[in-house]
């Protein structure tokens, strides 16, 4: 397709952006025309997303293309560039959009907050700005797109703006996003060099050509890490994430978690490997450490949530942490010149980006369906939904298994690659890092295992067991459009899990672009000998994994066992009530609640939480037990910052005490001090 009609791939990308904007603008002319928006515009957006995915897929192996749009600052028009890295993330964006938009078409209801037309505009501006972020090739275009993305998603998050919590969530989100954006601005300020080039120095092309000294490149990297970390939810800038995701409508949560967080990863990769050339080893260690802490934190908190979207939000924090672990590893390898290993680690990062996008979008959409069917996000009021919404449940199970990092689904592949990368670290020429790495690997393993715990909780409490509320038997399964969105994303999960060799071959072009080498290419004939079936990134002796064989063997054994059991024994089943332990008054409320399921972890990781317990006394007529689990960081970092700000505000208020003599005194003292300075 690209090139066929004389259009370059990048032209297609720009057309896609334009199309999304056009769809958005098309919506505000009929903001209340519900069928038009939900049955025409959203599906059209999904189609455009699909187109984007296809075009980006085709562009993965192409040489970079550039383009200049007549927008932006004078002397600094919008520079766009499509290289493999952008193409990969654009593909991710397109693929997820295809699923999420079609889901949104079915999901949209009339009654929610902002007028549907306005919401449609915001949504498509969000999409377009994400695409522009990925295409931008100068600092200004990047920042404009970056902040437009934050802004449009903020409006989407606060769709239901009459609820104070949602406003608060949106506020926190935009605030952290903005502070992060300023940090990015400063990062680009460093990257532009000494300013000789004037405004034209802000193009990425110029930045690539500059070699910074260790101090400035570290400063740039640190600022970038802060800025992108704020968007990604890296500790300690994660607090907005568990607030904003539940507040947003589910397709938006899916979009934010699945795709928007990845733009931050894209940014780190862009700055860390493309714009800066020589990573220092301690960047890697710092990123690795931060990533680990984030991952562990995320999963530990996910385990104790009782709001299903908050749980997923914390799980996103965990996954972001894992991504940063991979990035840190890549940086470390790269700084020691071990490019093949860097490529391995980077491949795991990129792979996990795709995986997380697929399964987390899927899971958020699942929560959306559940939310619509039951009107509640509270896990304590759900249960047994597998009987009422089987489609959602079974597709959700695929997402859950992927998310838990279980073979043969997609989450496992990237985890596997990451652990493989860790196993090579003893080759590092630095003693301390060498010792640190096993500990880090252990932490990654622990995180992965805890993710399983979390996902079991998520799925089991929502879909299994008995309905905890009577009205749950009214729940209906997802509609056709919703269902097709879910199926699409679930299919992505399965495909990514079963055919890793294809994917890695495609990812090679990205690692080649960033690191100069790719694992598929470097693996050599031996590793490729088994073809598409066996994933053996280094050599088959070293490690290999064949998901298709894996899945087939399991299925064959299951089928064989089933047939044999049926052949040789009877298949009698007696349906009766569950065993009640001799206590006949069993009710659905006696099942484990979400809190109950998380309780062991709460106990094991007690120091990590800030818990306030409200215990009933034995004389209470209506005993109430309540436990509130909060984040220490909120109290250790954010509230003190708020307090310091407030203190500062109180201090400066002394400047404005209303007395004119004092005001005159200020002028006077200013004058005298300045004169004194000048004179002296």
């Amino acid at each position, binding site marked *: 397709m690209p090139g066929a009609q004389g259009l370059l791939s990048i032209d297609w990308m720009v057309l896609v952006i334009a199309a999304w904007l056009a769809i958005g603008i098309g919506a505000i002319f009929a903001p209340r025309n519900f069928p038009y928006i939900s049955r025409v515009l959203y599906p059209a957006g999904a189609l455009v997303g699909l187109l984007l995915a296809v075009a980006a897929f085709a562009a993965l192996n192409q040489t970079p293309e550039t383009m200049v749009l*007549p*927008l*932006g*600052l*004078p*002397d600094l028009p919008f520079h766009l560039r499509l290289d493999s890295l952008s193409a990969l993330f654009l593909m991710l964006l397109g693929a997820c959009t295809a699923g999420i938009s079609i889901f949104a078409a079915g999901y949209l209801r009339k009654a929610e907050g902002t007028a549907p037309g306005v919401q449609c505009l915001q949504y498509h501006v969000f999409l377009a700005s994400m695409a522009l972020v990925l295409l931008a090739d100068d*600092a*200004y275009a990047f*920042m*404009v797109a*970056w*902040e*437009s993305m*934050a*802004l449009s998603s903020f409006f989407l998050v*606060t769709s239901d*703006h*009459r609820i*104070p919590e949602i*406003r608060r969530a*949106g*506020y926190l989100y*935009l*605030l952290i996003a*903005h*502070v992060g954006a*300023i*940090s990015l*601005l*400063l990062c*680009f*300020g*460093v990257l*532009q*060099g*000494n*300013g000789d080039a*004037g*405004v034209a120095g*802000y193009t990425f092309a110029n930045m690539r050509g500059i070699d910074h000294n260790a101090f400035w490149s570290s*400063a740039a990297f640190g600022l970038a890490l802060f800025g992108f970390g704020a968007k990604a939810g890296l500790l300690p800038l994660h607090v907005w994430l568990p607030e904003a995701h539940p507040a947003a409508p589910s397709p938006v949560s899916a979009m934010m978690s699945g795709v928007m967080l990845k733009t931050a990863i894209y940014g780190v990769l862009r700055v860390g490997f493309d714009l800066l050339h020589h990573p220092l080893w301690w960047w890697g260690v710092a990123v690795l450490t931060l990533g680990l802490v984030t991952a562990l934190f995320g999963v530990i908190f996910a385990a104790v949530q009782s709001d299903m979207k908050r749980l997923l939000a914390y799980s996103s924090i965990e996954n972001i942490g894992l991504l940063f672990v991979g990035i840190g590893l890549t940086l470390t390898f790269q700084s020691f010149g071990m490019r093949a290993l860097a490529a391995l680690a980077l491949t795991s990062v990129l792979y996990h980006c795709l995986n997380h996008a697929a399964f987390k979008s899927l899971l958020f959409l699942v929560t959306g369906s559940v939310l619509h069917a039951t009107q509640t996000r509270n896990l304590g009021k759900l249960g047994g939904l597998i009987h009422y919404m089987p489609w959602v449940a079974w597709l959700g199970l695929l997402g859950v298994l992927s998310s838990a990092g279980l073979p043969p689904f997609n989450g496992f592949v990237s985890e596997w690659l990451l652990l493989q990368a860790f196993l090579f670290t003893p080759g590092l020429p630095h003693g301390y890092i060498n010792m640190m790495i096993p500990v880090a690997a252990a932490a990654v393993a622990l995180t992965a295992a805890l993710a399983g715990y979390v996902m079991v909780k998520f799925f089991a409490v929502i879909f299994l067991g008995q309905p905890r509320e009577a009205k749950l038997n009214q729940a209906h399964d997802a509609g056709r459009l919703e269902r097709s969105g879910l199926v699409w994303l679930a299919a992505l999960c399965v495909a990514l899990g079963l055919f890793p060799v294809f994917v890695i071959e495609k990812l090679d072009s990205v690692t080649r672009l960033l690191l100069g080498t790719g694992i598929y290419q470097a693996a050599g004939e031996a590793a490729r000998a088994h073809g598409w079936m066996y994933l053996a990134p280094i050599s088959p002796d070293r490690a290999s994994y064949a998901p298709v064989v894996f899945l087939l063997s399991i299925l064959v054994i299951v089928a064989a066992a089933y047939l044999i059991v049926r052949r040789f024994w009877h298949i009698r089943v007696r349906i009766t009530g569950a065993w009640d332990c001799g206590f006949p008054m069993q009710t659905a409320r006696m099942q484990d609640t979400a809190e109950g399921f998380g309780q062991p972890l709460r106990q094991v990781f007690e120091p990590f939480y800030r818990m306030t317990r409200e215990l009933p006394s034995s004389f209470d007529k209506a005993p109430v037990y309540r436990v509130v689990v909060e984040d220490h960081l909120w109290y250790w970092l954010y509230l003190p910052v708020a307090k310091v*700000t407030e203190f*500062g*505000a*109180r201090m*400066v208020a002394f*400047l*404005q005490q209303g007395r*004119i003599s004092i*005001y*005159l005194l*200020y*002028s006077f*003292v*200013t*004058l005298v001090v*300045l*004169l004194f300075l*000048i*004179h002296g």
Partner: protein
Amino acid sequence: MEFLLVLGLPLLGGIALAATGHWKRAAEINSAFSLFTLLAAIALTLRIVEHGPQLLFEEQIFVDPLNVFLVALTAFVGFTTSLFSRPYMRIEHDHGRLSATRLRLYHSMFQLFTFTMLLALTTNNMGILWVAMEAATLTTVLLVSLYRTAASLEAAWKYFILCGVGIAQALFGTILLYFAAEKVLGHDVALLWTHLDAVKGQLEPTVLSLAFVFLLVGYGTKVGLVPLHNWLPDAHAEGPTPVSAVLSGLLLNVALYAVVRCKVLADGALHSNLAGLLMMGFGLLSVVVASFFLSRQKDIKRLFGYSSIEHMGIVTFAFGMGGPVASFAGLLHMTVHSLTKSAIFFAVGHAAQKCGSQLIEQIRGLIKQSPTVGWGLMLGTLAILGMPPFGVFASEFLILTTAMKAQPWATPILLISLGVAFAAIFGKVQPMVFGEPTAKRLPHKPAMLPVFMHLGLVLMLGLWIPPYLAEWYRQAAKLIG
């Protein structure tokens, strides 16, 4: 010819409205004068674009790229403010807060104020510049105290005394400047900026440094630089909203323009970065202090008054840094700030009228009651907070990135301040726009056209700066150095 109209029309308008300002159609007359002034300013601008800088009236008037765009901006904001004030003042009149005579005073002073600002911008004579600035103070003092309430009188009094004293320092600076220049240029042309600029290298540095300090403190008071700013929030909060809009949108700009003209001379004479350092210091201090002030405000207009201090601090900092990019950005920021801030005040004015209070906690849920006011305020706020794709972002982008290389020590301060400012302003505006509504209907249709005109322009400047405008900026930046 165009020039005569630019200065003459508002002067004439001021006189005419002094007689007719209480008529029923006075607001339309006011708008008409402003419109014609705007047209004349556009014509003047076109002429300058075509023919380059011009000296008129025995070199007393000088129009160059630096001031002509400010002239155009002033005329434009003056015009849109007159459009806004038409329904606004009528509603105030209907609510019984203003009598017809006050309206007459308002209309007349509004035109005179425009006149003084245009004069301050276009004059070539540093003395006249001073006179015009003082006159601008005097006209606005009467506007600030228009409601004659205790608070407005207090605000006007403080404004008058503080700016009067400040401007007196500027006069002393001007005298010192003259003292230095007279020896080089002789008696007659010693205060003409064009001549001063030509010989700035020969001016006595010691005197010039003193002069600059006095001028900076003097005009800086009008700019609202911390710690000379104390009049500003009071005046913004207590005056009628159109006045707040022009104070923030225009007066501060003009005062800053005066500072910049002085800085050019000081830079030339001192052969050091003293002026720049001082401006950066004041700029940073203003940004920091103003942003911390923001979080405790209860009055919405006061809030945005402090926000103006913050933005003037940013611009001052940018000019202090100097260099083509920073000066360019400073000029751009002046433009977009005055457009955005006046738009915000328009929206805030109607919001306050709808809710019958300027207190933030009593304004809630605007977007439900009147979506245009709500969206206007929301978008304006986001724009002023430096959210792209609005133009404020463009200038902040350039300023911050330049600062990162030129003055890296300042960037953490800017980062913190901008963050604090964002937290404060957005935290206050969000529940005003969203949330459960408290607003009621107004007797007259609010004028939201000016708001969206301004925001549209600001949006355009963020995404695309017309080439001729960019060229202006560039030339002006070159002048500033």
